[in-house]
């Protein structure tokens, strides 16, 4: 009974995805793969931000850790990708816990800027630790994935693998959402003090949400490395972190379905704006701003809007005292 929603979600992802995998042209299949990979990362970000309210502008760094983990273990140490992936994910989780422990005492825009600093630091290290990461040239020739001794021959087959991972990721997220752990995360975002007063160990909840989000990011990073078979620091900048957040908010924060919609939309949007030629990024920015202004609850909010009256607007951000000449 409690499993109905998660299973339905997984089935819907597999069905819609499989259908699309047969009707879309080859080039769009590549974008679908990128959407699926982003969606996994964004579902992870939903734990940290959507549920627990931790503003992370460093999510791409964890995607990068997963991707670099696979790249380094396979190309330098000759590991099989199937062995390298769990190792990279585990290492990212440990790093996230170590980073999260001191960092998550911060709140709001302090946490935002600290995680931004984390992402920038990751980029600088990845660009300059040449002996390990290959510097700005990145790491090429990551081996392709084999299933049952067969290399995945193309985008379509990779998409099937990606869809299975996405379906499982979404199902697990949905189960967690409806559990005591998901509720505790939401409680921490709604009112941290009241959560403590209800017996919730808010430190553990925040670190768990952060580590969980990093695990999802690392899974996305592993798939990314195996899909493009090349990683470079440029793929994991803080701009990517902001894109992940934008995907979540455009889709509808705190919603797993929204995370998927937002990822697909923002991955395909540049393609749909291609008719604008080199001006497309100008419109991309304006369009995202328009969605934020006119659809504050995201794409999933469209459906809710039809059923329920709109929510009251959030309180304005606190205003601080300037200290000019005082």
């Amino acid at each position: 009974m409690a499993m109905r929603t998660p299973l339905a979600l997984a089935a819907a992802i597999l069905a819609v995805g499989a259908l699309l995998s047969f009707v879309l042209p080859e080039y769009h299949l590549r974008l679908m793969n990128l959407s699926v990979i982003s969606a996994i990362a964004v579902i992870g970000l939903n734990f940290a931000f959507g549920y627990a309210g931790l503003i992370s502008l460093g999510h791409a760094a964890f995607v990068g850790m997963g991707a670099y983990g696979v790249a380094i273990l396979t190309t330098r140490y000759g590991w099989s990708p199937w062995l390298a992936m769990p190792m990279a994910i585990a290492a990212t989780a440990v790093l996230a816990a170590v980073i999260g422990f001191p960092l998550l005492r911060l709140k709001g825009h302090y946490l935002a800027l600290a995680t931004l600093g984390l992402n920038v630091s990751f980029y600088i290290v990845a660009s300059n630790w040449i002996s390990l990461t290959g510097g700005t040239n990145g790491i090429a020739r990551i081996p392709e994935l084999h299933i049952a001794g067969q290399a995945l021959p193309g985008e379509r087959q990779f998409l099937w693998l990606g869809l299975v991972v996405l379906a499982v990721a979404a199902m697990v997220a949905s189960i967690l959402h409806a559990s005591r752990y998901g509720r505790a995360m939401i409680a921490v975002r709604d009112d941290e003090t009241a959560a403590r007063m209800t017996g919730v160990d808010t430190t553990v909840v925040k670190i768990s949400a952060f580590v969980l989000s990093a695990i999802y990011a690392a899974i996305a990073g592993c798939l990314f490395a195996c899909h493009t078979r090349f990683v470079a620091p440029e793929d994991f900048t803080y701009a990517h972190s902001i894109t992940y957040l934008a995907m979540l908010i455009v889709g509808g924060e705190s919603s797993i379905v929204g995370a998927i919609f937002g990822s697909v939309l923002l991955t395909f949007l540049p393609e749909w704006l291609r008719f604008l030629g080199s001006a497309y990024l100008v419109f991309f920015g304006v369009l995202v701003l328009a969605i934020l202004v006119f659809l504050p609850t995201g794409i999933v909010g469209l459906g809710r809007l039809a059923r329920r009256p709109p929510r009251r607007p959030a309180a304005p951000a606190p205003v601080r005292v300037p200290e000019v000449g005082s």
Partner: protein
Amino acid sequence: MADFIQLLVSGLAIGSVYALAAIGFVIVYSATGVVNFAAGQFVMVGTFAGVAMLVDAQLPAPLAYSAALAVMALFGALFFLVVYLPLRKSSVVTIIIGTVAIGITMQNAALLTFGSWPFRLPSPVEGRTLALGGAIISTHALGVVGVTAIMVAGLWLLFNKTTVGVGMRAVAQDIQAARLMGLKVNRLLALSWILAALLAGVAGLMLGPMWFADVSMGDPIALKAFAATIIGGFGSLPGAIVGGLFVGLSEVLGASYISSAYKDLISFGIMIVFLLVRPQGVFGEKIQDRG
């Protein structure tokens, strides 16, 4: 020693630019609560306003600088109307994403207009140098520090000695009370944005001759301005100045004495240490541990 003086001056000059960008960021944050992630793009627009007037239109210097600053003032007002007003009731994160999105638009609009080839923005004291303690110092760099000092003094006068400035502080302190006192709150909020844009414009005009004018220069400046604000103290103007100078010095001295590859890691490393140990920065207020 001569090397050190040279590095010191260029560190202070670049730090002055960061400080001006950080001050603009803080003025907007204090008045409106908006964490403006397009702050770096404001500086980029300032530089390219200079390119348009000085290089493209070939206007004489005084006219060109005035025209560029007028463009910046208009730009600040436009940003207030098109970005701030629609987003003003949104959450912190929505505002972050919104200002980033519009920053992407600004950067690509500049790319369409000016192309990706970097420009050389001339300085009014182009090529001149001064000898100081055996070191050859660029007059432009000294001028940047001087102009910044004048700007800071001007801001102090504005916020302490003029009705408009005191009104802006009142709005920043308590917007409801300011409204009850009969202040024209929206006009003062718009002025905060215009002031921030003007400061970014001055920063951009001074930065142009030191770096190449490049449409992608906004992001690194924004990052440095953020680091400066955190180190100095979020929301504090003296903090923005000290933080900006500190980041500029650590970048230039760090590149030369420690490692040029990891020079940026120094300022961000220090920023993260500050966040963890003293999140209120050098000048910020004590942050309440709860609530």
